[in-house]
C-alpha cells in the first residue's frame, strides 16, 4: 500500500472468446495485466475480488446480463463505482440513449468495429488517468501519516518541556513565598542554581529542535555516497581527542541514498561514543554487514555502557540514561531524532550494551 501500483489491470468482458483474445493482443503492453470474463456475472465477480482493476472494457451485447446492466451494478457498489468503464458497442439508436445515462463518472465508449489506433489511444488516456489517481491516493496516505507523526511529535515535545519548567516554577514560587527568610542561604542558592540548570537544559532542547527542523527542511536529494569516505570525513571534522582510537573494522559500502541523513546518524553515534566515553584509552569501532536488502552498521565503544532498562528509553524524546543525564550537553533529543531518520528509511536502530564492556549501537540502512 505504500507504493503506487505501476501495473495497469484491465478487465476485458465479451461473451465471445475470440473477441477477448483480439482485444488483449491489440492492447498488450508493458505493465499491463489482463483479466478476461465471458459474462456479466463473471465480470462482476472479478471486479469485486480484485482491487487493482483500473479499467473495464465492456461489450454491450451479451446474453443474460448486458453491458449496461453490468455497469449499473458496478456503479452502485461502493467498492467498484470508481472503476473506469469503456463500453464496446455498435451504437444503434437505443444504445446511444443508454450511454447518456452514464454521463457521470469515468465512462466512455468505443464503436464497433474497433479502430486499432483509436482503441489504443483511448486506453492509454485511461491508463494515465488511473496512474495519476493512484499517485494522488498515495500522496494523501503519506501526508496523513506525516501529519500524525507531527502531531505525536508536538505532543511529546510540549509534554516533556513541561518537566524542567515545573521545577523552575516550583523553585521560584518557594523563593517568592519565603517572606520570613526561613530558607537558608544555601537552600536559596541551590534553588537558584537548579532553576538555572533547568533553564539551560530547556534552551539546549530548543536548539536541538531547531536544528532538527532545519535538517528536515534541508536538501533531501538522493546521491551516491561512499560510506568509507563519509565516515573518514566525519571523524576528521570531529577532531578526536588523543586518547580516542577510531577503527573501521570492515569494508564499507557505496550507497545510493540521502547523504545528509546518513551522515547525521553516523555523526551523532560517533560523537556520542566519544562524548560519553570514560576510559583513559577510548576505542571506537565502526563496521557493517549485509542483511538482505539492508546494511546493518554498528558503532562500538568501550564507554560506561547503558543499563538494560534504558535500552529503549534512550531513543525516546528527552529521555537520557542515568549516566548520560549527568553530562551538560545531553538533552535526549539526539537519539530520538536518529530513530526517526533511520525509521524513515525503513530500518531499525537499537543498542546492545553490557555495562562493563561498553555499548554497540546498531542501525539498518536501505541498500
Amino acid at each position, binding site marked *: 500500500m505504500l507504493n503506487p501500483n505501476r501495473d495497469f489491470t484491465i478487465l476485458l468482458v465479451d461473451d465471445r472468446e475470440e473477441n477477448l483474445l483480439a482485444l488483449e493482443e491489440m492492447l498488450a503492453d508493458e505493465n499491463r495485466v489482463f483479466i478476461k470474463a465471458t459474462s456479466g456475472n463473471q465480470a462482476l465477480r472479478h471486479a469485486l475480488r480484485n482491487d487493482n482493476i483500473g479499467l473495464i472494457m465492456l461489450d454491450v451485447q451479451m446474453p443474460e446480463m448486458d453491458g449496461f446492466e453490468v455497469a449499473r451494478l458496478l456503479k452502485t457498489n461502493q467498492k467498484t463505482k470508481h472503476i473506469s468503464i469503456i463500453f464496446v458497442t455498435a451504437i444503434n439508436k437505443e444504445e446511444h440513449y443508454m450511454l447518456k445515462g452514464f454521463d457521470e463518472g469515468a465512462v466512455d465508449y468505443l464503436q464497433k468495429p474497433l479502430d486499432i489506433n483509436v482503441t489504443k489511444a483511448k486506453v492509454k488516456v485511461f491508463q494515465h488517468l488511473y496512474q495519476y489517481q493512484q499517485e494522488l491516493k498515495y500522496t494523501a496516505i503519506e501526508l496523513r501519516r506525516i501529519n500524525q507523526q507531527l502531531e505525536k511529535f508536538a505532543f511529546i515535545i510540549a509534554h516533556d518541556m513541561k518537566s524542567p519548567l*515545573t521545577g523552575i516554577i*516550583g523553585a521560584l514560587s518557594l523563593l517568592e513565598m519565603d517572606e520570613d527568610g526561613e530558607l537558608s542561604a544555601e537552600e536559596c542558592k541551590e534553588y537558584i542554581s537548579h532553576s538555572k540548570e533547568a533553564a539551560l537544559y530547556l534552551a539546549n532542547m530548543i536548539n536541538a529542535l531547531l536544528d532538527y527542523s532545519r535538517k528536515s527542511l534541508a536538501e533531501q536529494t538522493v546521491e551516491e555516497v561512499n560510506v568509507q569516505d563519509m565516515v573518514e570525513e566525519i571523524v576528521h571534522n570531529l577532531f578526536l581527542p588523543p586518547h580516542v582510537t577510531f577503527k573501521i573494522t570492515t569494508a564499507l559500502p557505496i550507497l545510493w541514498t540521502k547523504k545528509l541523513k546518513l551522515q547525521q546518524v553516523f555523526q551523532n553515534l560517533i560523537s556520542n561514543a566519544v562524548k560519553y566515553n570514560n576510559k583513559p584509552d577510548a576505542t571506537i569501532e565502526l563496521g557493517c554487514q549485509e542483511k538482505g536488502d539492508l546494511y546493518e552498521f554498528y558503532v562500538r565503544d568501550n564507554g560506561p555502557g547503558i543499563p538494560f532498562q534504558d535500552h529503549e528509553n534512550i531513543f525516546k524524546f528527552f529521555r537520557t540514561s542515568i549516566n548520560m543525564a549527568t553530562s551538560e550537553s545531553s538533552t535526549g533529543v539526539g537519539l530520538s531524532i536518529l530513530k526517526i531518520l533511520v525509521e524513515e528509511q525503513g530500518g531499525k536502530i537499537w543498542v546492545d550494551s553490557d555495562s562493563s564492556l561498553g555499548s554497540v549501537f546498531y542501525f539498518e540502512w536501505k541498500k
Partner: protein
Amino acid sequence: MTNRYNVLIVEDDAFIRKVLRQSLKNDFEVTTHINGIEAMSWLEQGNPVDVILTDLQMPYLNGQDLIKTIRASPMFKNLPIIILSTYDDSNTRIACLELGADDYMTKPFNPLEVKAKVLAVMRRSK
C-alpha cells in the same frame, strides 16, 4: 504538632521531588520515593501514610499502575491518592479518576495549591 499527616510523594525527577518536599514539609511529615515499586514496598513495610501524591510517568511501576495496585490491595484500598502530572488532557484525568485517584493536579504547580489540595483531600477522608 504531633498529629501531622504523613504524605508520601512518588516522583522520579529529583528537582521536582525536592521542591515538593519543601512545599509540604512545614505542614506534613513528608517521605519521597522515585517510583511505584519503592512506594509500594514502603507501604507494605507498615510505615504510616495518610495520603499519596504521585506523578504518572515514571520508570518501573508508573502512576496508573500504582493506583491499580493500591486499590486492589485490601490493606490500602481506601488510601487517598492525588495525581500530579504534566498530562493535562481530560482523557488522562478521567482514566486516573476512574482507576481510583481522588484528585488530579497538573504541572507546573503552585506549591500553595499542592498544600491546599492535600489538606482538602485529608479533610474529606477523615
